[in-house]
Structure formats: structure tokens, C-alpha cells
């Protein structure tokens, strides 16, 4: 499997040029070794993204035999920008992402803080946290669909038992959005918890001992010491989750079908519906491209802000 490797010199190189040549040979071998991976990645991710931009700027005709690209046009973009469903999907996806990620990071941090103090059973506790993470989203969506079911769902039974009546969990827009958020938070908070916990146990112990000797309360210790030190970990966990949440598809596809109406239709679900239900690939590609652009822009802004914060924290 490493047939392409150049043989490095067995003895110490007598001359500098020999050494140089050997290094060049090794570097070339390196590119050959990594070429298969880079070619596959390029062909299946980079090329389609470029192609997607081309599609989004063309009149696409999908026929039984294949597809044709008509002339260049900006119509796909103006079509989606002027469509109320797209604007709603954008608002919904952004709002959904902000709320769920915020709740998940707060709860995940709480879980991590508690788990870090566990002396017994931490391994088992972490294994339990991993279960929702490893679960197929389609399955958790079906499970929550059954829990929220209107006539025999267990959520209805529990709400009645505590005297909250018969809420329509998935039948009206706002409760449907909240119900979906709960299902999402259940599945992904443990993931945040694990990442934060991993960051937490790597923090230096002596600062905490010093704080305790100084008589700092738990609250002060958290805000003055733990939180600032943990900020890089929290930032990465948040970024991961934002990216995942923004691609929201499986959960609404199964749980609500994007409804009632279009109240839980995310950008990815809208793109899917436009492409595969309406068979209109131009606007579909425009939705996909704008979503990608938003994700990238969001990443860059987030990293900028985060870096500025870290810089400020270091100066202070």
C-alpha cells in the first residue's frame, strides 16, 4: 500500500544536495499517496459545488433522457428571493438554529459541569450521552412523532395527567416548532455535553485550587475562571452545532413534513421539495447555493467575532 514511497537515505547524508533531493522525493511520494483521497473529495464535493453555482445561474431543463442547460440567467435567484416561502424558510432556519443551539450549549455546559465532578460512573454516564448522538435522526423523529401523536401519544397522556389539557403538538404552527425543537434538543444536547466535558477536564487544576483558597463561590469561579478558559471549546461546539442545525432536513421531513402549512419548512427541506417534488432544478440549485453561502459567511463572521473575543481576553 506504500509502493509509491521513495526510499529515504539509509546513512546520514554526506552532502546537503542529497538531503534536499531526498526531501523532494518524499514530498512527491506524499502527493502521490494523498492523491486518491484528494481526487475523490474534489470530484464529489468541490466539483458539484461549482456545478451547483452554474446550475443556479442557468435555465435547467430536466427531461427523461437527461438535462439541458439553457442560457445564463439570474431568474432563479430573483425567483427565490421574491418567494414568500423562501423568505419564511430562511427566517425559520435562522431562528430555529439560534434558539436550539443556544439552549443546547447552555444545557450541555450544565451537564458537563456536573459530569466533571462525578467521581464514580462517569464512563457509563458518557456512554449514555453518546446514545442519542449515535441514533439515526429518522428514528428519533418517528419516536417523537409517536410521543406527540394527537390521540394516543404519551405526551398527551402526561399533559392530561398534570391538568394541562389536550395541546395540539404538531397540528398548529408554534407548538409544532417548539415540539420539533424539543426533539432536536433531546438528541443533540448530549453531544455538546461531551465536547464541553472533554474541554473541561483538560483545564489546569491549580487555578481552581487557587480560587477555592481565595474563597471564591461556585458562581464566581464559573464566570471568572471556568467560562473564560472554556471559551474556545464552547466556540467550537457552537460552530459545529450551528452548521448542523442550519442543514436541518431529516427531522422536519419525518416529523412534520414541513407543516402545518410551511411552518417547519427549513431551507434544506424547501430545496429538496423544489427540486424533487416540483422538478425545478434551477431554483433548487439557487436555494442550495445561497444556503451554502450563508453557512460560509456565518462561519467566517463567527470565527472573526470569536477571535476578537479571545484577543480581548488575552489583553485584559
Amino acid at each position, binding site marked *: *500500500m*506504500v509502493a509509491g*514511497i521513495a*526510499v529515504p537515505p*539509509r546513512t546520514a547524508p554526506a552532502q546537503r544536495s542529497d538531503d534536499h533531493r531526498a*526531501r523532494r522525493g518524499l*514530498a512527491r*511520494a506524499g502527493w502521490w*499517496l*494523498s492523491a486518491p*483521497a484528494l481526487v*475523490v*473529495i474534489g470530484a*464529489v*464535493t468541490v*466539483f*458539484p*459545488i461549482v*456545478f451547483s453555482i452554474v*446550475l443556479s445561474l442557468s435555465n435547467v431543463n*430536466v427531461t427523461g433522457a*437527461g438535462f439541458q442547460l439553457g442560457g445564463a440567467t439570474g431568474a432563479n435567484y430573483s425567483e427565490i428571493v421574491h418567494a414568500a416561502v423562501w423568505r419564511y424558510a430562511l427566517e425559520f432556519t435562522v431562528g430555529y438554529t439560534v434558539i436550539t443551539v443556544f439552549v443546547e450549549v447552555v444545557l450541555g455546559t450544565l451537564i458537563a459541569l*456536573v459530569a*466533571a*465532578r*462525578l467521581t464514580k460512573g462517569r464512563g457509563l454516564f*458518557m*456512554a*449514555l450521552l*453518546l*446514545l*442519542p448522538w*449515535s*441514533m*439515526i*435522526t*429518522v*428514528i428519533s423523529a418517528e419516536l417523537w*412523532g*409517536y410521543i406527540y401523536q394527537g*390521540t*394516543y401519544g404519551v405526551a398527551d*397522556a402526561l399533559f392530561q395527567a398534570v391538568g394541562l389539557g389536550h395541546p395540539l403538538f404538531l397540528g398548529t404552527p408554534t407548538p409544532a416548532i417548539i415540539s420539533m425543537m424539543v426533539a432536536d434538543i433531546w438528541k443533540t444536547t*448530549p453531544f455538546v455535553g461531551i*465536547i464541553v466535558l*472533554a474541554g*473541561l477536564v*483538560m483545564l489546569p487544576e491549580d487555578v*481552581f485550587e487557587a480560587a477555592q483558597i481565595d474563597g471564591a463561590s461556585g458562581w464566581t469561579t464559573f464566570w471568572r475562571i471556568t467560562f473564560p478558559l472554556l471559551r474556545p471549546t464552547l466556540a467550537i461546539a457552537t460552530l459545529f452545532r450551528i452548521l448542523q442545525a*442550519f442543514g436541518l*432536513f*431529516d427531522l422536519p421531513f419525518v416529523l412534520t413534513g414541513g407543516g402545518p402549512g410551511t411552518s417547519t419548512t427549513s431551507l*434544506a427541506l424547501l430545496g429538496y421539495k423544489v427540486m424533487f417534488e416540483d422538478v425545478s*432544478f434551477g431554483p433548487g*440549485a439557487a436555494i*442550495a*447555493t445561497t444556503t*451554502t453561502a450563508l*453557512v460560509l459567511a456565518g*462561519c467566517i463572521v463567527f470565527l472573526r467575532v470569536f477571535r476578537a473575543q479571545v484577543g480581548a481576553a488575552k489583553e485584559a
Partner: protein
Amino acid sequence: MGARRQRPLARVGRWATVALVVVLIAAPLYWLLASSLKTPVNIGASPTQYIPNPISLANYQSAFVHYGFGRYVLNSVIVTLGATALVLVLGTLAGYAFGRLPMRGVAVVLVVLLMISVFPEIAVVPPLYLVLRQLNWLNSYQALIVPYTAFNLPFAVWILRNYFLGIPHEMEEAARVDGASTLRTVWSVILPQALPGVFTAGIFTFTACWTEFLMALTFDSSNSYRTIPVGIALFGSPTVIPFGTIFAAAVVAIVPIGILVFVFRKWVVSGLTAGAVKG
């Protein structure tokens, strides 16, 4: 942190929180298992049956006999193992090169890889669909194996490179002084050291392929190529959702991955942290 003195009240509060978290995570999982063991009639029973009585395997029978769930399991196994094997072979080669060979411009390649690994899937689904359609690859195993390989490679390359980077150069040199060939050195000295990385990358790729839905739905939706998530999502008709059958299939689909994650939790956590904290 565990060594600090703990006040009794704080300890009670902590255990109460742990208990609450355990219950909140476990309750839906219990509900999935319990519901799969109810009789089809009791799935919709009123009042709700909290403990299945009688315990029935009818849903499992229905999933495999009436809905042909075995076929979906087979498809998932083929696609997942195929993609995982490819990711590990290509990822090890690239990870070794990036981690140990004096290549220029690796930093740029790594940043590009990281950016690719965060792209939302929907970005590549429309163009890939058209390309696969043109190739006549829709509804085939390679229609999923190839994209899954490409999508999981960047993360695997990152993890593997980190492991290769951490292996001391002295070991390699010692083997060389002993007269081992380069091929032999890589095979018997470097690769065993990087094995935890190979393991972690393998578990992550396996989990990602086993759970992937959007591409499986768009590229392989014909009944004979459906993977587990697609099969489960398309069970039943628009008017009837056969929850019992779905949950029986779900238990079958979750158990292998649950065991995998449970047994290898150390590697999973190390992978999550390698990706999240170091990356």
C-alpha cells in the same frame, strides 16, 4: 477537578441533576423499546400502556416479513462497510503523507478539507443527482458509497494525520538502523501506533453512513436499494404510520451501533475531542 472538597448539599444537588439527565435521556429510549414490544393493537391503546403487556414480537415479524426490512439492513451494511473501508484506506494514505512527509502547502489543503467537511449536504445534492442520473448510477450501491467516502474522508484525514503526527520519529529511525525497509517500517512500526486513529475514524465513518438520510433518499429510493433510514421513513402509507413496525425496525437498527459506541466509547470521545478541541 473531582479532588476538591465537596459540600454535602452540593453533592445531593449534583446527584439529583445526574439522575434527571439520565431519566430525560433514557425515557424516550425506553419508550422506543417498550413500544416495539407491544402488540399492534396496544400501540394505540387508551389509557396508554406504560409497560408492554403482553410482550409481543409481532412488530418484529411484521418488519421483516411484511415490510422486507432485512433487505434494507443488507443495503445499509453493504454501503456502510464499503464506504468505511474506502475511507480508511484512502484516509490512512493521505493522513500518513500529511502527517509525516515534508510536503509543502499541506496547511492550505487541510483548511480546505475542514471547510468541505462542514458544507451542508443540500449544497451538493442537486448537482450530484444530475451527474449520477447521467451516469445511470441512480439506485445503485456506488451512488452512495462514493459520496459517503468523499464526505467522510476530510474528517478521517484530519484525525489520522493528528495520530501520525504524534508518533515519535526516533521509533522510525531505530527501525531503519535495524535495517528495516521503508515499507516494513510503515507497516510494522508506524501503522500500529496510529491504530487508535484508524479505529476512531472507522467508528465515525460507520456512524455517519449508517445514519445518513438525505442522499440515500434522493439517490437510492427504489425499494431494492433503500438503506435503513430511508426504509423506515417510507414505511407505511401517507395515511397510516405503522409505529410498531417502525420501532421494531428501529431497535434492530440501533442495537449494533449502540453496542459499537458503548464498547468503544473511549475512542468515540477521543475522536469528538480530536475533531472539536484540537481541530
